[in-house]
């Protein structure tokens, strides 16, 4: 497979040097120092490695870097703009929807993707959409509350 030499991440074009089959997760973390995206299982089961590719939530541990080439990749580091937290990030803080925080990046990325397609999700929809994200600390009820809060804020701000 051909080497991948450039990725579009968080609105920037970044030079990389990776075999096409290397996982996007490895490239993000080890080459670009974007360590907010976490490894939790490497088999698509925990969601800690979730990033957005063209706005859709993707498991970066299972995504070969070649599949992310020329697409818009958003990681947790790219959510806040102009020094302001994204409303989902803020909602996680407001609801204290984290304990150890290791699942948090993946949870937030998945929630951002959810709200893009379902601006007003019900609690059941939130749970269903986020079922693939594990929080071993058991913060689920607060995460649902945080997503609800972010949706609410999104609605108010139009």
């Amino acid at each position: 497979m051909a080497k991948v030499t450039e990725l579009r991440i968080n609105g920037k074009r970044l030079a990389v040097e990776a075999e096409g089959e290397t996982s996007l997760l490895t490239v993000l973390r080890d080459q670009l120092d974007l360590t907010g995206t976490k490894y939790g299982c490497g088999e698509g089961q925990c969601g800690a490695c979730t990033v957005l590719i063209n706005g859709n939530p993707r498991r970066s541990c299972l995504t070969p870097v070649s599949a992310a080439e020329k697409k818009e990749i958003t990681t947790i580091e790219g959510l806040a703009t102009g020094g302001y937290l994204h409303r989902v990030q803020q909602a996680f803080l407001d609801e204290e929807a984290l304990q150890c925080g290791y699942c948090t990046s993946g949870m937030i990325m998945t929630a951002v993707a959810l709200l893009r397609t379902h601006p007003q999700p019900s609690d059941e929809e939130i749970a269903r959409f986020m079922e693939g994200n594990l929080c071993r600390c058991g913060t689920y009820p607060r995460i649902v509350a945080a997503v609800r809060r972010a949706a609410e804020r999104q609605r108010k701000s139009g």
Partner: protein
Amino acid sequence: MTSKPYDEFVFEPERYELRSPPAYYFDLDRREFFRVVGAGVAVALVCRSGLAGQEPGRGRRGSQESLPKEIGAWLHVGESGEVTVFTGKVEMGQNIRTSLAQAVAEELRVPVASIRLVMGDTDLTPFDMGTFGSRTTPTMSPQLRRVAAAARDLLVELAAKRWNAKPGKLKAEDGKISDPASGRSIEYKELATGQALAKAVIDDEPLTPPTEWKVTGKSLSKVNGADFVTGKHRYTPDLKGPEILHGKVLRPPSFGAALTSLGARAAEAMPGVTVVRDGNFVGVAAKSEPEATRAVAALKAEWKPVPQIPRRELFDYLKKNARPSEDRQETGSLASALSSADHRLEATYTVEYIAHAPLEPRAAVAEWRDGKLTVWTGTQRPFGVRDELVEAFRLPLDRVRVIMPDTGAGFGGKHTGDAAIEAARLAKAAGRPVKLVWTREEEFTWAYFRPAGVIEVRSGAHADGTLTAWEFHNYNSGGAGIRTPYEVGSQRIEFHPVDSPLRQGSYRALAATANHFARESHMDDVAHQLKMDPLEFRLKNLKDDRLRAVFQAAAKQIGWGGAKSSSGRGFGIGGGFEKGGYVATCAEVTLDRATGSVRVVRVVTAFDCGAVVNPDGLKNQIAGANVMGLGGALFEAIDFENGRVLNNLFSLYRVPRFSDVPPIEVVLVDRKDQPSAGAGETPLVGLAPAIGNAIFAATSIRLRSLPMLPEGKLPKVNPGA
């Protein structure tokens, strides 16, 4: 064998946690100290032996220039006004970075934002045995309060001297000392400037009583929460450095297998790869993680397996191989109480091995520089890991430093230094720092498990509902929470240790989960036998007011007695006392008769851990404990055969997910008159019996094994129930 009176009787609940503490030599002298931390005012807390429990270190007598040796914690107010607190405790999601800062802010009268906690760094923080056993709130929190209160007094004295005023007339508030009489005020940072003032206090400085708390007792969001929601916080696997190599270990095909031969030529020929073989240890270091993985795959190793106990024989094995119990509790005459009882009941309960599976796997970064080894690693026992490294590499104590970046959970699973030792061994051979991150498969196999166990219970009761006889034997799972809180005239309670077939160790709440499951399930059966309401039966045999109160609070919240169990719906209750906390949990389950699947639809936990420090953080912990407990109660179990773990992935080992979690209601019983106890563990113990009892109420099926529903549904649905 010894029989001890009830009150003096102490099982060894921490037998899987505690190892003997190392001799600790704390030898930073005063000049050195201020050189490291900068000018200012410092206060150290000296623990009088015995008073501070597990936290203090032991050491030599100090010279006059040295700081005292038996230090629990210290605090420094710097020239910029920043307050730095040093504690050996560590943060892993239990939120003590915030609750300890609250405690300091309270006594020192400064905003929480001006406080920085340096935690779990063996070169900078005082010795600490480890963060486990729900000890931080009851011991470290008061210690820090004392240090902060003493620092405040010291600052008051400095101001008094400066103004020639009486210290008693001055007030400390919001980072300032003021003199109400003259209207003068001065900031702490000004007082600290140019100082090199150190003071030691004994741990009996009076504290602000809970009824006057202003900062503590209120909810405060995580002090560094923004670092987590932005991905900025660096856990051990996120640490970077230009020199860092990636490590990987070749694991044996089964537990205990010995390496008989190794063909490493192909791996060694790869550019930039170092292969290490040292006894049974084989690992590689390479420039990138994919390269390390390829190098390990190129190794040709032969292993000699050792015989293993098959899983189906596990519980027999535990019973047959029990060593004589080292301790037992005995009161009254069990035999006569049993023979004169109107009702007798006997049952056996089992508990499987389960895994902690913290989301951040074990990881370490190790660096050798100028003969000193520094290791960053996610551990609950930085000092314990330091000692393991000292032993493994035969180094003097002061040549090893362990630093613990706040870690992605522990649950009792990050006590040992496996990853640290492996990374250090590889780094030593490679001559460069090495990062090693365990894969999920490694985490599920090579960590240690919550002990499996067999519990046998025999009881006797009078027809009027009085419990008269209680016999309780726990094989291997552990002694935590083994004592019954109920009043029983005649009892015998024993813990029987076994050499476990699988590697086992501590786990959140230890054996209290298993022991409460057996006891509270059994209590329910006895109530049923007596045709009594399970709550009423418990209260009849319970004198402890605080435990009664939480049982009643949980029952009230769920509407106990109002909503009746029926054939498709059941309510259950379970609770107990452990580690200073009182807990009662009610669960409501529904049953789909067609499929036999059971859903927990509602959970209520009432908890009393004395004076509440941070109500919101506490609720988060209690809800989290219930979610975690749900997995062990219903479906988590390690499946093993021939010395391998068969379900070593999240796709094979099911842990609770969003859809598993019912609404969890938390009732806090805030007892400002009682010392604060920890809350990371005890809230977990009532859930499994509450669910089991609810299932029984709905189906008349009694499930006596944890997990109760490994297949997700009842073994058989009894249509007559």
